[in-house]
Structures are given as C-alpha cells and as structure tokens.
C-alpha cells in the first residue's frame, strides 16, 4: 500500500479514538467509561499495526501484541471491581 492510503486510514482511526474520548467524557456511569476505554484500546491496537506497516519495521508489531495483552489485563481488573470488587 502506498503511504498516502496508510496515512488516510490512520486519520480515520484517530477520529475513532476521538469518538471514544467523547463517550468517555459524556458517559454518565463508570461502566460506560470502561467500555469506551476498551474500545479505545482495540482501536489503538489497529493503529499500531497500521503504523508498523507505514514505517516498514516488523519489530513494531511486537509493541501491538504486548499492548493488546496488557491493556486487557488492566480492563479485566476494572470490570471485576465493577462486578463484585476484585
């Protein structure tokens, strides 16, 4: 893929992150904000993979992998607290 296409897709994904931020600001309860955060993490993983394609370094894919695993752990902690407290 050419660089322009990848940069356009990166802009669209950034708009998705901004929409998640809007939900996080508006969300009346804490579970709404947790779901917005979860969506932002998933979208960010896609953004990191796309940037690895843009910079043409396969090492950068490891960052996306570690990122997806570890943010999931943090969100599991929040979800368990919301359900019945750790």
């Amino acid at each position, binding site marked *: 893929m050419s660089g322009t296409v990848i*940069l356009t897709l*990166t*802009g669209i994904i*950034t708009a998705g*992150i*901004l929409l998640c*931020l809007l939900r*996080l*600001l508006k*969300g009346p309860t*804490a579970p709404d*904000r*947790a779901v*917005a*955060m979860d969506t*932002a*993490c998933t979208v*960010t993983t896609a*953004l*990191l993979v796309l*940037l690895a394609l843009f*910079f043409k*370094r396969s*090492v*950068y894919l*490891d*960052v996306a992998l*570690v*990122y997806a695993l*570890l*943010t999931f*752990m*943090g*969100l599991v*902690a*929040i979800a368990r*607290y*919301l359900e019945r*407290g*750790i």
Partner: protein
Amino acid sequence: MIIIVSLLVLAMLVAAVAALIYRDLLSAVIASCLVSLLASILFFFLQAPDVAMAEASIGAALVTAIFVIAIRRTKRYEE
C-alpha cells in the same frame, strides 16, 4: 502526519483534564489509563517502540490495576 499527532496531543490534554476534575475516582482512573494509552501512541510516532512498550505495560495495565485495588481498600467517591 503532523495533523494526526496534533489531534492525539489534544485528546491527551482533554483526557488529563477530565482525570483531574472527576469526583468518581474509578472514572478518573479510567481517564488516566486513556492518557497513558495516548502517550504510548505518541512514543510510537517518535519511533521509540521500546519506550512505547514500557509505557503501555506500566501505565495502562499495572498502574490501573494497582489504583483499582487501592480504591477497593479505601472509598470510591471523593467528598
């Protein structure tokens, strides 16, 4: 590229201000998790993937879990 980075910095600023003004401490923890997530993306844009990996593992996962455990031991709402 510079427009995308500017948008991400702006979103990071808004999330940091939101983390400051929330009275519900769990929401503040979630907002600070978003701040460290966006900082990780910015480190990635600056071509420092190892720093981005450390920021993602410490900021987004470890600090969030520790803060949630601390909220569980104390109380959730600020007076």
